[in-house]
């Protein structure tokens, strides 16, 4: 291949890029997708999916440890970290093959290689010639943000990549950053016995979540034996032969934490380098490509979606943008910009945390007069039957219009349930519609119904 023409070129085959390619093919466009290392992107290979596979092992291990309380005997419990990791890799591999199949089925031309823009509508694939298309979508994703002095060193210091294929189970693990990624790894390693310390610069863990949820999560993790330092910054690192020592400033005090491994999870930065942006009018802001509400960059015919186009750094946001962007290119009518208030966010530790919409503090700051409903899983029949009574569901409504402003769940299957509220906000349901919905019994989801009732003083089971 030297010169090939299509309607659309997608650079990057993550959940942003491959979904955009499939949608474009559905709409009848000829599409070429260039991926340099792995179809499915970070999400499928080094992110969402393999972490969930690991956490499944952790969950089963925890449940087996509780077997006695269910009248079961599990004998002596054990685990093999290599097997756990091998399963996680196999899951990722299987899904990667699935994406390849989907692209083929939709007749998307997939080119394995590294792409860069070389002029308007033109892309060069390293060592493989050039491609031309009137529309080009950049979906190059992002990578872990480095912390100066704490760069991955192939031994003590891990980014998420090394943490997903650990060489040992660290006896003492320090996790820097308490966002979703940091918390999930902390939860995983703690489940298998690592002594975990989480360091967070802000005043609470899971800082994007509702204050109340952050506080509940912290209590739950501390009960499981995690150490959590908030308002703490790492200031130094000393490497010894077999371990390291981290210096932490917290509340005017200096602490020294010995650790066998350190995971740095302080956020990510967009892959904006070496893709030929200098040949375009694209603006890069704070490490990501600036776009308008339909994913257009400042360069006509050039679009950016997913992690490279900025937060929230979530796979479903990337995919949603991919679809929106392609539908705009295809000229579909009636498109709506993505409303960040309707994008759910999930953290899959134990307990799980999931939310959509505003936090209580944000709702108040935006001037809403709110009604707040809470319902604890301890009052939910199914949760009691499952033996998972920790946590609660919290809802926030605008007291005038009855608009569901935000919903927050911490506890069993939180991440599976939040979609109910996401549908509600997207359909612009009010409390009346949610109240009028019949929730099946017995399910954890009944707590979602009760949390709505509670906001209007009508909860039935508390």
């Amino acid at each position, binding site marked *: 291949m030297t010169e090939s023409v299509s309607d659309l070129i997608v650079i990057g085959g993550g959940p942003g890029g491959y979904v955009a390619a499939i949608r474009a093919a559905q709409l009848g466009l000829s599409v070429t997708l260039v991926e340099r290392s792995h179809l499915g992107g970070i999400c499928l290979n080094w992110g969402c999916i393999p972490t969930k596979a690991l956490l499944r092992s952790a969950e089963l291990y925890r449940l087996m440890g509780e077997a006695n309380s269910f009248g079961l005997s599990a004998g002596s419990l054990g685990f093999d970290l290599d097997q756990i990791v091998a399963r996680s890799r196999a899951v990722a591999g299987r899904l990667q093959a699935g994406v390849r199949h989907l692209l083929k089925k939709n007749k998307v031309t997939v080119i394995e290689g590294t792409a860069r823009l070389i002029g308007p509508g033109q892309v060069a694939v390293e060592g493989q010639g050039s491609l031309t298309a009137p529309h080009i979508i950049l979906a190059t994703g992002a990578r872990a943000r480095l912390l100066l002095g704490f760069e991955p060193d192939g031994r003590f210091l891990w980014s998420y990549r090394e943490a997903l294929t650990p060489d040992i189970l660290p006896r003492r693990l320090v996790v820097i950053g308490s966002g979703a990624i940091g918390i999930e790894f902390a939860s995983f390693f703690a489940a298998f016995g690592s002594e975990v310390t989480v360091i967070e610069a802000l005043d609470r863990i899971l800082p994007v979540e509702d204050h109340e949820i952050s506080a509940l999560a912290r209590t739950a993790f501390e009960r499981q034996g995690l150490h959590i330092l908030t308002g703490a910054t790492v200031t130094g690192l000393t490497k010894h032969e077999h371990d390291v020592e981290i210096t932490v400033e917290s509340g005017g005090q200096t602490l020294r934490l010995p650790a066998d491994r350190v995971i740095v999870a302080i956020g990510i930065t967009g892959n904006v380098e070496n893709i030929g942006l200098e040949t375009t009018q694209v603006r890069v802001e704070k490490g990501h490509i600036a776009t308008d509400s339909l994913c257009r960059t400042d360069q006509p015919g050039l679009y950016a979606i997913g992690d490279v186009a900025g937060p929230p750094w979530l796979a479903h946001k990337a995919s949603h943008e991919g679809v929106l962007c392609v539908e705009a290119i295809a000229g579909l009518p009636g498109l709506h910009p993505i409303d960040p208030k309707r994008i759910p966010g999930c953290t899959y530790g134990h307990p799980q945390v999931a939310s959509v919409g505003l936090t209580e503090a944000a709702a108040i700051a935006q001037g809403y007069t709110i009604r707040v409903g809470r319902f604890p899983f301890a009052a939910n029949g199914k949760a009691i039957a499952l033996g998972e009574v920790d946590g609660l569901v919290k809802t926030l409504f605008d007291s005038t219009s009855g608009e569901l402003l935000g919903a927050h769940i911490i506890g069993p299957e939180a991440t599976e349930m939040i979609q109910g509220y996401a549908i509600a906000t997207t359909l*612009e349901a009010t409390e009346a519609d949610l109240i009028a919905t019949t929730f099946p019994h017995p399910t954890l989801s009944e707590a979602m119904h009760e949390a709505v009732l509670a906001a209007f003083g009508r909860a039935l089971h508390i």
Partner: protein
Amino acid sequence: MSSEPRQFASPLARRLAAAAGIDLTKLTGSGPHGRIVKADVEKAKTATPPPHPAPIAASPTLPAPAAPAASAGYTDLPLTPMRRTIARRLTEAKATIPHFYLTVDIEMDAVLALREQLNARLAPDKLSVNDFILRAVALGLRAVPEANAAWAETAIRRFTDIDIAVAVATPEGLITPIVRQADRKGLGEISAEVKSLATRARDGALKPEEYQGGGFTISNLGMYGVRDFAAIINPPQACILAVGSADPRPIVKAGALAVATVMSVTLSVDHRTVDGATAARFLATTKSMLEDPLRMML
């Protein structure tokens, strides 16, 4: 009316449109399949001036003071969140709900006599006239459940329970704690509950579930000597009963002039939810309970 095509609009859009007095049939929906969504209503709100003129056009518009200057002859009291809510809700209610008003006079001598007897027995506890009114209203609503209803934009919501809100003045403004299932409560129980709710309302100690909801509101200004007034509906409820003072008034009985203790009450009704004859039936039942209060004791 019946041949009108179905209007697709999100529940939130319907509510917001109703509150802003915007006619949904005049809007073009930008949602899937032309569904009207919140954004369309918001756009219409900024595009068109509200159909209802500002209610107090007669009062001169005061320029906002640069700083609270006492010498300017007035003091601007900053709005509390509660005051803001009251202002918004009442403006919305008065501007968007098609109110109508029914007034009846009720002879209260029998209630007063019964009250005296009961209080003599109950001392030191005391029943108030308002407790009787609450009970009569509860029984009236049981007899005419159509009045225990709310406008729910896409439906008329008829409540199963008879939950009556009672307006209580507090230093911050009006609050309406609720006597739940009032029709199942005796006078003593009602009386104790209202006392406790009112005290806690004035102390600001009510829990949200104690003042949220309710299917009907009673507002009583009789103790201030107000003879008759018309209240603004407490949405989404359909009716609010404004109670005036009970005082001796000349009446005509069997063709002759007589004196009786008479109380005027005025029912404000949301015509979308309740029609005139229904409201009148409710008032008649309530009146008959109060004029023959032994029936309430059953």
